[in-house]
């Protein structure tokens, strides 16, 4: 375990080990190889953020550069999965998923249910989410709630390199369609990651910090902001329990409810917009199942109900910050 690697390297290693283990795994997407069909270096790009770099030299044509038509290649990936392959499709930004909603919502998610449980669709769609990258409204969204809403899809959001490797391996081995969301701002983050292959089961939240006063439930980049807030609050003797959901569908209600039963206070943090979000979903579940445990009203910290602004200073205000999270915690403590 002595080795520190970035989330980018961890994802690359997960793809590498699964491609080596299982010949039905293949990878497709825009510029994932880069340079195909031209005269220059074949493995030029490795995707816009370099996650697949180096795999072409090992696995050749099992990495496919696709045309700029998300609906076409996501449809192809879903079809290949239905026919026994395990495709991993890279769809650059989650914002672009709109053009292939039918392939994902109506086809991939429904096959198992439409064909009496006999059809399996082991497709993984890797995609980038999140703000803070100065990439404006069409490249900065966190549309995780949209996909969590659809039965039949699994939605995974790692917050660190260790989880990224284990969850991607589990996603590839899983027999259902998985929307695998990578936060743009976490690719460079390093931590100890075992060289060996391992899978993290879905539906198991990670309690990243234990505390007895307030439960903070979150995922993705917001885990780090919540941890900053918790460190800030610890100086004032407010002990926060921080839960990283890791997978939004399935979701680990047991860990959330158990924690709120201990703390009696809940702050839900979500980088997505507030309406119909993971934050509102968790709030609803807790008020339904653990109402008697609550000592104060549930607080939500989310982005506003507006598109992500392009202006850097506005984007900074737009995203939930550690200060905003700490403020929400203090509000629940005041009751």
């Amino acid at each position, binding site marked *: *375990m*002595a080795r520190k690697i970035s989330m980018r390297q961890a994802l690359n290693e997960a793809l590498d080990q699964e491609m080596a283990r299982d010949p039905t795994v293949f990878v497709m997407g825009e510029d994932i190889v880069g340079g195909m069909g031209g005269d220059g270096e074949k493995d030029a790009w490795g995707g816009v953020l370099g996650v697949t770099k180096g795999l072409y030299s090992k696995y050749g044509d099992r990495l496919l550069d696709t045309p700029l038509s998300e609906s076409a290649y996501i449809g192809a990936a879903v079809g290949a999965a239905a026919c026994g392959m395990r495709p991993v499709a890279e769809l650059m930004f989650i914002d672009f998923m709109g053009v292939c909603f039918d392939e994902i919502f109506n086809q991939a998610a429904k096959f198992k249910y439409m064909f009496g449980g006999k059809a399996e669709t082991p497709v993984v769609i890797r995609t980038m989410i999140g703000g803070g990258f100065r990439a404006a409204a069409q490249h900065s969204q966190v549309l995780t709630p949209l996909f969590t809403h659809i039965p039949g899809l699994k939605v995974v959001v790692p917050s660190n390199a*260790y989880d990224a490797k*284990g969850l991607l391996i589990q996603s590839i081995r899983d027999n259902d369609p998985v929307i695998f969301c990578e936060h743009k701002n976490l690719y460079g983050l390093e931590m100890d990651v*075992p060289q*060996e*292959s*391992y*899978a*993290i*089961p879905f539906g*198991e939240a990670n*309690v990243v910090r*234990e505390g007895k006063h307030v439960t903070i439930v979150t995922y993705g980049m917001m885990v780090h902001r919540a941890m900053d807030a918790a460190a800030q609050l610890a100086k004032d003797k407010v002990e926060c329990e921080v839960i990283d959901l890791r997978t939004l569908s399935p979701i680990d209600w*047991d*860990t959330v409810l*158990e924690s709120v039963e201990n703390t009696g206070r809940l702050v839900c943090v979500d980088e997505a917009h507030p309406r119909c979000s993971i934050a509102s979903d968790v709030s609803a579940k807790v008020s339904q199942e653990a109402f008697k445990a609550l000592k104060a009203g549930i607080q939500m910290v989310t982005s506003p109900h507006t598109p992500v602004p392009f202006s850097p200073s506005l984007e900074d205000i737009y995203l939930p910050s550690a200060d905003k999270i700490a403020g929400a915690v203090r509000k629940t403590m005041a009751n």
Partner: protein
Amino acid sequence: MSEKRIIPIVMPKWGLSMSEGKLASWLMKDGDKVKAGDQILEVETDKIAGAVEASEGGVLRRRIGQEDTVYPIKTLIGVLADEDVPDADIDAFVGSYVVPQAEEGEEEAAGPRYEFAETAAGRLRYTKRGSGDKTVLLIHGFGGDLDNWLFNADALAEGATVYTLDLPGHGQSTKAVSEPTVAGLAKAVLSFMDTVKIDKAHLVGHSLGGAIAMEVARQAKPRVTSLTLICSAGLGPDINMEYIDGFVASASRRDLKPVLENLFADAGLVSRQMVDDLLKYKRLDGVGEALSALKAGVFAGGRQSAILADVLASSGVPALVIWGAEDKILPSTHATAASGAKVEIIEGAGHMVQMEQAGRVNGLIKVMLSG
């Protein structure tokens, strides 16, 4: 010359990954007389809490470290000295104290902190410490790894060459266990001894590791100088199968934590990090299969399949049996099955007695090594 009588108390380094520790509490006051082996203060790391013991006798002259404060390893946190050392000398010692830099050959300089041996039983991870004439090999139990000796390996290495290893299926060793039986694992240990050129060693085994050590003595008696069996398997049929089943089956922190609490007399010692580290191990490809195979091979039908008590009696190899009085995995009543062996039952400790009462256990093993 007076410097010789001033003994620094520093933040210890327990295990290769520890870089800092929290001074949880002082167990003694300024001016208290201290004997070698007395517990002076408590330290918490992200792995476990433990007590720092005096290496020599003296008077606790200065408590420098503050409680509830984190210090890097090797930081001076206290001073032990004779009564007649003037305060001015203590001040001078504290003022001029320099945290020793990593010596040449220590981990930073020497590259990988863990080593790997290519044995007939596959690739095994191990560590080697110390350089004494005597050789000690520490063998962990079912589901454990070489970090189970976190509080023992360094102390024993003061006077001996100490090896720890990850058995096949465990830690960072190969996850393939070709022969998932006590005899098969003993062969793996012998093959490890061949590879790293250990001719003969004092074997110290914990739990299943104890049964393996006895089996090594049965298969190759000339290679075993002595046997120290800690809460050892192989001395009777009983085993807490609920623990074994729970350990093998648990896939989440919520399930695993109560299982691990059975290992200690003080359940509070099971830290988040300990549960996390074990979950990370259990998730590795091949571990589930390895543990299930070992469970079937070693504890079939909920009984221990290899009873080796007679090996001890007939071998003539000097043996010491140590047990935690509150062991909830293997009953301490098995301790007396080893006729001819010296038996020590330690109060206030459970199955992981070598962690919970490290000082006592280290002291007993050292006597065994010198005898």
